[in-house]
């Protein structure tokens, strides 16, 4: 009982315990703050990285495989699958309206199926907005005006078709990653405002135009390969830009161009075609076995259109391994129907088998980096906790030195060593609990209001720690995970008790006579 009484009195009459509680508070607050923001940041990165891919990808890279509609249909029969989308993944060169030519990753997609298998519909950027972004106080977002225009842009983006406003002609279109053109200024509010872009004309004059990409034309250059992976000839095609997308992951938004699947199939010679008997000639022209004759080679069959990948989206809650197994079963049925015409079923030692991987497997490098970063952060946090433990130990050491005489008195009236140790341990427990509770409250308050606080710092002090141009997220993660809070709180208490342990043992083993004589 005396432990409770003295703990209460020491807490309310001494500065040192408040300092110790303050140290615990700051440590727990710092840990929860860093963990919440970094954890939230990593979570956002992972979510963004997943926007444009499915849960499982079935891939035969570059050359692709045919009869994919049948595979999509087969996958569609599975109750665990909500969508499957055939796509082509290739590389090419993109000529921008200002004359720059940049290397890009191209995806040929069918908007409707792609939206079912990925987060494409949400990633389309140019769509009508009824309310401004939370930090767009000045309403600079052009999506807030002219909803009809953006409604059309959104529909065009989904269908990857663009109707020329002057001629009325509908053409296959491209959808660019929002960072591809480099024509936008990203404001701290997260709003994209187009620059004025100058294009040097042949006569040497510069034509200035709004950098807004929707409606402008870009030229895509690709190098098709034959079924054996040999380059054929470069193909160029102009596409109107129907819309742009933003996943939030800079690498994807900077390097990816989506185009209509059919159009890309044509460019890459992956569309449906007649198969002919070459008999000594090859597709590169030139005679392999004599002068070319004037007659067309005989048609011996139809080569189906091909895609490189089928993306599969699982129902929510279905584990990746299970959906992978479902896909494997579906592909096995598909392969048996087209034996030797499509890549084989994956299995041990099977050569030429289709590549089937979950999102986690595809992103293994990225996830491993994230995990390493998390481990590193946790390591730092544990180190901070150890520092806090030593801080508590030092404070308790000093407090016990100050209360040496009290310890002697307690021993003189019959307190046991265990009783004296428990006094200081319970004191450490209370200080840890108090400090942790205050720390969690402080950190939660800061995390929940991190964006307003950051805005205020920017306005009042000119400090911008979280620059959206660097981090590519408009808002700082502001969610506190209750489990993390609980862990940090328990950790704070545990490390406080641990810090109090050595001083408590020292107090317990003090010679009562020496304690009473202590000056």
């Amino acid at each position, binding site marked *: *009982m005396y432990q409770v009484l003295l703990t209460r*009195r020491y807490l309310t009459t001494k500065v040192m315990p408040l300092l110790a509680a303050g140290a615990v508070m700051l440590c727990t607050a710092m840990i929860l703050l860093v963990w919440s923001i970094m954890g939230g940041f990593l979570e956002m990165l992972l979510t963004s990285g997943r926007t444009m891919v499915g849960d499982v990808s079935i891939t035969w890279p570059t050359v692709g495989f045919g009869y994919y509609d049948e595979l999509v249909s087969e996958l569609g029969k599975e109750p665990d699958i909500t969508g499957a989308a055939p796509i082509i993944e290739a590389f090419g060169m993109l000529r921008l309206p200002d004359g720059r030519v940049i290397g890009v990753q191209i995806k040929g997609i069918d908007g409707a199926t792609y939206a079912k298998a990925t987060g494409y519909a949400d990633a389309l950027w140019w769509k009508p907005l009824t309310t401004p972004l939370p930090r767009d106080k000045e309403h600079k977002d052009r999506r807030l005006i002219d909803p009809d225009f953006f409604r059309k842009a959104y529909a065009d983006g989904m269908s990857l078709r663009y109707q020329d406003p002057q001629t009325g002609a509908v053409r296959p279109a491209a959808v660019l990653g929002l960072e591809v053109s480099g024509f936008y200024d990203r404001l701290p509010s997260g709003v994209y405002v187009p620059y004025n872009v100058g294009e040097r004309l042949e006569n040497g004059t510069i034509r200035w135009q709004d950098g807004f990409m929707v409606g402008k034309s870009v030229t895509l250059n690709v190098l098709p390969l034959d079924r054996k992976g040999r380059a054929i000839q470069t193909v160029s095609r102009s596409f109107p830009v129907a819309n742009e997308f933003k996943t939030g992951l800079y690498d994807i938004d900077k390097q990816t161009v989506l185009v209509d699947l059919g159009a890309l199939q044509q460019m890459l010679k992956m569309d449906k075609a007649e198969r002919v008997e070459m008999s000594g000639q090859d597709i590169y022209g030139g005679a392999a076995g004599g002068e070319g004759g004037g007659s067309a080679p005989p048609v011996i069959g139809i080569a189906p259109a091909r895609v490189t990948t089928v993306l599969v989206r699982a129902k929510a809650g279905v584990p990746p391994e299970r959906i992978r197994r479902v896909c494997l079963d579906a592909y096995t049925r598909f392969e048996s129907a087209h034996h030797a015409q499509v890549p084989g079923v994956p299995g041990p030692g099977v050569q030429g088998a289709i590549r089937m991987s979950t999102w986690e497997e595809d992103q293994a490098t990225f996830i491993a980096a994230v995990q390493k970063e998390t481990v590193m952060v946790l390591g730092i946090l544990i180190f901070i906790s150890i520092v806090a433990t030593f801080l508590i130990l030092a404070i308790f050491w000093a407090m016990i030195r100050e209360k040496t005489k009290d310890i002697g008195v307690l*021993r003189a*009236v*019959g307190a046991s060593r265990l009783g004296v140790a428990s006094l200081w341990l319970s004191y450490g427990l209370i200080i840890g609990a108090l400090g942790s509770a205050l720390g969690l409250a402080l950190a939660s308050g800061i995390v929940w209001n991190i964006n307003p606080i950051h805005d205020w710092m920017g306005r009042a002090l000119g400090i911008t720690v979280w620059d959206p141009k660097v981090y590519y997220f408009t808002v700082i993660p502001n969610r506190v995970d209750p489990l993390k809070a609980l862990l940090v709180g328990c950790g704070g208490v545990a490390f406080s008790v641990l810090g109090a342990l050595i001083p408590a043992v020292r107090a317990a083993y003090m010679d009562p*006579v020496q304690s*009473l004589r202590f000056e």
Partner: protein
Amino acid sequence: MTIVPAGIHLMAHLSAQAVFKTYRLGRVDVPVLRGASIDVDKGEWVAILGASGSGKSTLLHILGGLDRPDRADRQVRAENGSPRRGRVVFEGRVLSDLSARDLDRYRCESVGFVFQFYHLLPELTVLENVTIGAMVRRGIAGYHGAAPQARARASDLLDAFGLSPRLRHRPAELSGGERQRVAIARALMNDPPVLLADEPTGNLDRKTGASILDALESHRKATGRTMVIVTHDPDVARRASRVVRLDDGRVVNA
């Protein structure tokens, strides 16, 4: 089980036999007690008189179970037939044979200490300082039910020492005499059969010291409690029923 060693005065309420104690100061051993022996009968008031450094406080601490006697060295044992280790016996129980837990209980229930410098806990009120002994004795669970009785006994003791108006005061708000009376009340809280006082008037002026001695004396008369008081002041010692002189770690008359 009670085992009384040979040579122990069976009638003594509290007894120390051939107690040695040496403190080590740096690299130097400083002998404080050199075979001191004393018997205190039940209800007796014994004053241990000695100069500063004669070992009287050490003897009191050993009697109270706060400290333990040394082993007597071989030569000393051969010279005067001392036991291997000095013994303190209380009501037939040898303190050095007690476990740490039993020794804690002995200090809690059988003896009450009064110190020269009061040694009150500064964060607690007067009432809490007195009840702390009951808290230690009963533990968390036991004290919870017995708290009203403990507070009532503490109030009665403080009332007997004229401190009723000071129950909620902190030690810093009291005079030296008042503090020492609180310390006496604390020592008596668990109603121990023995009261051990170490220079209880040493830090007080003569008038206040006399009033403290008056309080102790009247209390002893009323309760018949055994009392051992350590002092260097012959006037204080004279008030005891028996005086034991300690010189250079040895009892010179008992």
